[in-house]
């Protein structure tokens, strides 16, 4: 069975410090992996996507994620947090199956302090 585990429900960082949001997945097949971001009272927006090309994926707003098959991880990082990065982040596994089947993690809420 496919699943996604986001290891932290809340992460708090100071502005200008690095961000690390952790995600582990379980999949029987080579998965597509995504990170989506949700700002307060908004819909979700795609940050980045991994689909078996380069293992280091760069996304919008300076975020990147590295696919590590041996660790079944897809952690999201950013070198320097900005106040506008405060949001909820979702790690997502994409599966083939006749439609865009996405399995969402429970989410990690990122707080950024001055």
């Amino acid at each position, binding site marked *: 069975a496919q699943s996604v585990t986001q290891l932290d429900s809340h992460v708090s960082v100071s502005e200008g410090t690095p961000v690390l949001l952790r995600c582990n997945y379980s999949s029987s097949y080579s998965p597509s992996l995504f990170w989506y971001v949700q700002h307060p009272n908004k819909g979700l927006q795609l940050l980045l996507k991994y689909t078996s090309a380069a293992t280091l994926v760069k996304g919008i707003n300076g975020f990147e994620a590295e696919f590590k098959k041996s660790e079944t991880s897809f952690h999201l990082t950013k070198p320097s947090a900005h106040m506008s990065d405060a949001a909820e982040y979702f790690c997502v596994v994409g599966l083939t199956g006749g439609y865009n089947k*996405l399995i969402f993690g429970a989410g990690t809420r990122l707080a950024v302090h001055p």
Partner: protein
Amino acid sequence: IAGITQAPTSQILAAGRRMTLRCTQDMRHNAMYWYRQDLGLGLRLIHYSNTAGTTGKGEVPDGYSVSRANTDDFPLTLASAVPSQTSVYFCASSGDWTGSVGELFFGEGSRLTVL
């Protein structure tokens, strides 16, 4: 501005009432989806439609129905609302299903409270 429009943005509903959440997209995407978002559970798929005239069940379809009469509209109906359907509902769309998973575009959500 192209995108997905959901209505209403917020609604309080008495249990047992019928409710339809509306979703319209202007990106000419063939595929559309309805998700519910609950704290600590992420998003869960209720129903989907790969193209106009077809629909399918997601993870949590019970108590919900959808229709897809045309490309742009994908309404979600709660025939007889129950308190467990209190949630935030998101409509999404994506380009053609090509056998690999693509990006979903989301609306801003409809917050539904069933009392």
